[in-house]
């Protein structure tokens, strides 16, 4: 029994199921992070004092992380482009770089957190740190989630390329969309937390 429009697009919507599904999921993610930004606005404007981001946080490290994430956004889409050209070897290399970038991002994040903890700056220290850990933490979990999927697509999931290349390509596209969204959140998170 086959579900229609798994690989081919449905004519009137122009979409295949996975693509519509991921965009709907991303819409819900917009609301998730939106709630966090809303909380930040309320807490920050309601606070008597609120430090500037650069006073408390490591801007150079976060800037490096921003470059890493943007770079990984490029590599994932180059991976998808390679698949559409039928070049599985290149696609895997790009996917691998994307995964490594994700790892790099998390490592730097770990260094950031570690440094803070060693100076006894915990989530419970004050509302600024609560918000910082909360938002970067949830974002980090999303990075991890993406990494798990990339690892799957490079590992056991790669077998699908032989039997159903179209379906595999769609999976990479859909994961790529998710990854771009994670990048998009960071594009807003970085200046709001670190630079303001």
């Amino acid at each position, binding site marked *: 029994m086959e579900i229609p429009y798994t690989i081919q697009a449905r004519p009137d919507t122009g979409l295949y199921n996975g693509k519509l599904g991921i965009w709907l999921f991303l819409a819900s993610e917009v609301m998730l992070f939106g709630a966090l930004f809303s909380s930040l606005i309320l807490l920050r404007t309601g606070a008597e004092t609120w430090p500037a981001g650069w006073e408390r946080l490591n801007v150079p490290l976060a800037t490096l992380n921003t470059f890493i994430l943007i770079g990984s956004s490029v590599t994932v889409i180059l991976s998808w482009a390679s698949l559409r050209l039928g070049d599985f070897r290149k696609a895997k290399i790009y996917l691998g770089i994307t995964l490594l970038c994700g790892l790099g991002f998390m490592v730097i994040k770990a260094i950031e957190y570690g440094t803070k903890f060693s100076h006894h700056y915990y*989530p419970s220290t004050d509302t600024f740190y609560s918000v910082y850990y909360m938002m970067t933490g949830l974002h980090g979990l999303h990075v991890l989630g993406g990494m798990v999927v990339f690892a799957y697509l490079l590992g056991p999931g790669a077998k699908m390329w032989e039997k159903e290349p179209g379906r595999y390509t769609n999976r990479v596209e859909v994961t790529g969309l998710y990854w771009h969204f994670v990048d998009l959140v960071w594009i807003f998170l970085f200046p709001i937390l670190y630079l303001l």
Partner: protein
Amino acid sequence: MTSRRQIRVGKSWMSPSEAEKALREAIRVQKEEERQHGDDHHHQGFVRTYIFSTDHKWIGIQYAITALLFLLFGFGLMLIMRWQLAFPGQPIPFLAGLLGDARAPGGILLPEAYNELGAMHGTIMVFLAIVPLAVGAFGNYVVPLQIGAPDMAFPKLNMMSYWVYAVGGVIMLMSFFAPAGAAQSGWTSYPPLSVIAGAGQTWWLVGMIFLITSSLLGSVNFLVTIIQLRAPGLTFMKLPFFVWAQFITSFLLLLAFPPLEAAGVMQLMDRVLGTSFFLPTGLVVGGEIVQAAGGGSPLLWQHLFWFLAHPEVYVLILPALGIVAEVIANNTRKPLWGYRAMVYATIFLGFMSFVVWAHHMFLTGMGTTISAFFQTTTMIISIPSVVILTSLFLSLWGSSMRFNTPMLFALAFLPMFGIGGLTGLPLGLAAADIHLHDTYYVIGHFHYVVAPGTIFAMMAGIYYWYPKVTGRKMNEKLGKLHFWLSLVFINVIFAPMFIQGLAGISRRLYDGGEQYAHAHPALKMNIPMSYAAWLLLLAQLPFIFNFFASIKWGEKVGSNPWSATTLEWAATTSPPLGHGNFVEIPVVHRGPYEYNAPGTTDEMDFLAQNAEDPVAPDGGFFPQHAVAKQEA
């Protein structure tokens, strides 16, 4: 006209040779199916078929059984509370042992235990019973069938949705075993109380995260399924209203739940990591200053909670409206009045539901501007509800009404939901709400909408679709008994609550408001109300017996026992699992409610959605039969 002998095959009349041809064709198709799919059938073990099924029909049944069990359990929690309300301070009969000394020393319910029952009753009813039943069970089983799809768009995701919900449910049940009991801060979990509460609250938050995740996965599935997998010819404006209702409901779940998920994580962090998202500076509890950074806002929680919880109440009612619409159209034997208006009203309702939430917060000190904004949007949102209810009422006019059990429940739904909706209006106006907020009036209002409202609609749906799932009808006599008893008792429970609320009795008081001397006349009503509640439980026994007994002994029926037009009745009776739903994907030729439409006769007073246009070689009609293949 020749007088040829005709044989009745299902709902059609055929000549003997045609009947034989149809039967042989049916057998041939079945053998072909078995030949093609015989192999996979044997490889799917019990676990894959019944535990981790990816078939939407079985998942729907899993949801239904689980949700109905939770419904009974949540009801039971309230029945214990009703003793305390009717006879405050008196030892509870029978159950004192079960409650134990920690909750009811000497059989007398402690205030903390009362709060625990209240918080968990609300949580379980809303998140573990009604929504999983309305969306997870009915939605999953019926929607793919009604749109002519072989399954949901993402069957594995569907399976995960169910199991994440089940795990969330187990976590909620486990929370009763936490040291100080389960959550006790209301289903609304307001901080600071919820942050300083016992461990059960943490379990509640974790459980909620699982339930919200399940809901999100499910809503993506529903939306993609409805948009992408509609059968050929099934345009949006030909969809059964039930599918429209599920469609908008899924949008609500998709976009409104995430803020609560975020808030839940923040409250968890407050409790576990010592953050102060919701704890204000200088909080003093029991005479002691709370050791927290402060700087947080309890109102932030309320905003994020109600941002979800208001759309959530429309999640509770929309599938119910969908079911009622289906049952009414079917049992009035005429199309719904104002189908288009109902659809547009539902879309508008869904949109508006996102901008009314702070009417739950009129008494939190909001300024007049923002208060006026939310009052305005709340008044506006009553319009689409009225449009839908009016259309359903008008659909009854000039009908050939059949009074079977599903129809009785659907009919009763209309005035009950009307009462629930109308009593909401004073609550939506800040001035009146000053007097009514947090009183029994509110409890009466929302219970009317959900209990004789949604739950009656769920009952209608169960009686209506039971023959599709099992191939047998439930017993009508037991059904009618169930209906009349439930209707009477449920009104005795909730109608007096409006009077109690107007008399000023607050909600969530463990002794029901004993200290309010002025309210004693109204308080006395608690006694008949509680008796009605316990009798309501007894009134469910014929239903429970009927539900299980009919599986074996119910009247056997064919694929379309109600003579209905929508596509789920074109599938075979009790469609088998794992094989898709239709022998051939149906093609839709007309709208969903072509009862007594031009081209029908007295004998065959409906045109199925996928039926060929009626041809009259000798004045007869040949509606599509699921098993007999029509010629192209």
